[in-house]
């Protein structure tokens, strides 16, 4: 297929993905808006006012970037894992398999579709946060780059999860037992400087810490970690997971008999 045909195929997949999550917005866009509003009210307003400062900022200001990132991560991952698993489950994956769309376009389409939901939810949550705090963006480029790359990375993760998943339970295991704990412990709610040295070291093994902190750096200008290193790491993970996901598609794992 030439470039124009590939582009059409890619756009088709992305549009289909966006149509899917907007069609079921009550399941996809509304819940994070409600949850995050509750977080803003409870942690930011009610409890936050007693906590005082964190990393030199109002507690509310401090957690807003973390909560936005948390929504982006959960929703990018969640979108691709349920959409691609559903596609396998309903067998409409066959529509793609009989067509000449190359695997890397299939993967890119799903990943960008997932990133679109992650970023869409991130945007909604950002708008909601404006009711509770003023957001001043410190480094626009870093903010956008890190949120985009993170959305792509977790979309890839969701894709791989969906390839391996055989039942609906399998698509909930990773988000519940891995993603949520890592996000909560990834500096969304606190600066790791509060932790004893040992636990600071342990926390630094958590990749999500780097994403949350880079994003917070983009917005507030403060970070617990080195931004250059964080970017290198995110891009490294994207290449790793992307290559692996493509390998799975090429071998037909969980897709072709």
């Amino acid at each position: 297929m030439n470039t124009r045909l590939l582009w059409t195929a890619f756009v088709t997949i992305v549009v289909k993905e966006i149509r899917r999550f907007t069609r079921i917005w009550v399941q996809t866009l509304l819940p994070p808006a409600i949850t995050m509003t509750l977080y803003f009210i409870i942690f930011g307003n009610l409890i936050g006012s007693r906590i005082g400062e964190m990393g030199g900022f109002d507690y509310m200001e401090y957690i807003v970037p973390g909560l936005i990132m948390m929504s982006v991560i959960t929703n990018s991952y969640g979108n691709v894992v349920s959409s691609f698993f559903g596609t396998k489950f309903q067998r409409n994956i066959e529509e793609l398999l009989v067509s000449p769309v190359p695997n890397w376009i299939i993967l890119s389409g799903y990943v960008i579709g997932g990133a679109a939901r992650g970023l869409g939810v991130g945007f909604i949550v950002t708008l909601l946060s404006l009711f509770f705090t003023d957001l001043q963006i410190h480094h626009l480029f870093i903010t956008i780059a890190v949120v985009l790359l993170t959305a792509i990375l977790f979309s890839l993760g969701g894709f791989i999860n969906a390839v391996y998943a055989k039942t609906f339970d399998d698509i909930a295991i990773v988000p519940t037992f891995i993603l949520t704990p890592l996000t909560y412990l990834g500096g969304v709610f606190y600066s790791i400087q509060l932790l004893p040295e040992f636990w600071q070291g342990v926390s630094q093994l958590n990749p999500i810490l780097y994403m949350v902190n880079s994003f917070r750096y983009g917005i507030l200008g403060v970070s617990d970690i080195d931004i250059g290193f964080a970017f290198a790491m995110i891009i490294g993970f994207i290449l790793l997971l992307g290559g692996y996901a493509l390998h799975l598609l090429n071998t037909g794992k969980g897709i072709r008999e």
Partner: protein
Amino acid sequence: MTTALSIQDLRKVYGNGFEALKGISLEVQRGDFFALLGPNGAGKSTTLGIVSSLVNKSSGKVSVFGHDIDTRLTQAKQCLGVVPQEFNFNPFEKVLDIVVTQAGYYGIGRKQATERAEHYLRKLGLWEKRNERARMLSGGMKRRLMIARALIHEPKLLILDEPTAGVDIELRRSMWDFLTEINAAGTTIILTTHYLEEAESLCRNIAIIDHGTIIQNTSMKALLQQLDTETFILDLKEDLDEVPTLDGYVIRSRDAHTLEVDVPKSAGLNALFQHLAAKGLEVTSMRNKANRLEELFVSLVDKNLKQESA
């Protein structure tokens, strides 16, 4: 290049060790209307699944319009439209979206895709349903939706796995007309079906597959010539006293005023009628019994079964 589909020594062993295809070879010429027949579990869907790259083959060669699926898969896929046996669209999507999206996978832009979708959905009587979610369609409509989807990139070879299963007689006939029309316009068609009259009235060439091997591969005409007897049902004006006998014919009574006669091709019907007339039996009507092809099919598959167990 005149071969639409060429299959050589194709084997498939499923993950559980089951050997579904034991080395089949098959050629379908461009422009043909070809039937792949066989009992349940014979390996028809497996064969078509491999051709449409939904199932990985274990060994053998497949090429579509000269494009080997191992080396020129993209080109092979572009020539191919697939209507699978099981519904495989997203039931929550709208009819029109399903068809237009499929076009997009072939790189067809939205404008052209929408025009073509309208053409095929109208042809298949689904245009009124274009904004319905696919799950709201009846079984027959779902099948037609899959046909529209398979044609959206105007493939040279259309593969249909039991397209008329669960479709009522009237609709089936209109589907036959439609398929005949696109075949006449140049699309090569391969279909599987359990309705032998369907194969008989549509297809020029056939293959019969059983237990993963091809037991017949010939033209429909040649196959029908293998039938050396035909069975007729005769309705009589008056009730019978006794069943007449005639050398060379096997005559049975169905009930008091209906006869069933096996007529050898060589013998013809004149002698039979003369004989009945001489007996004073008046025939009011006559018809062919059930489907001759069906009987032949059963006998072929039976023979294969005996050979296998022998």
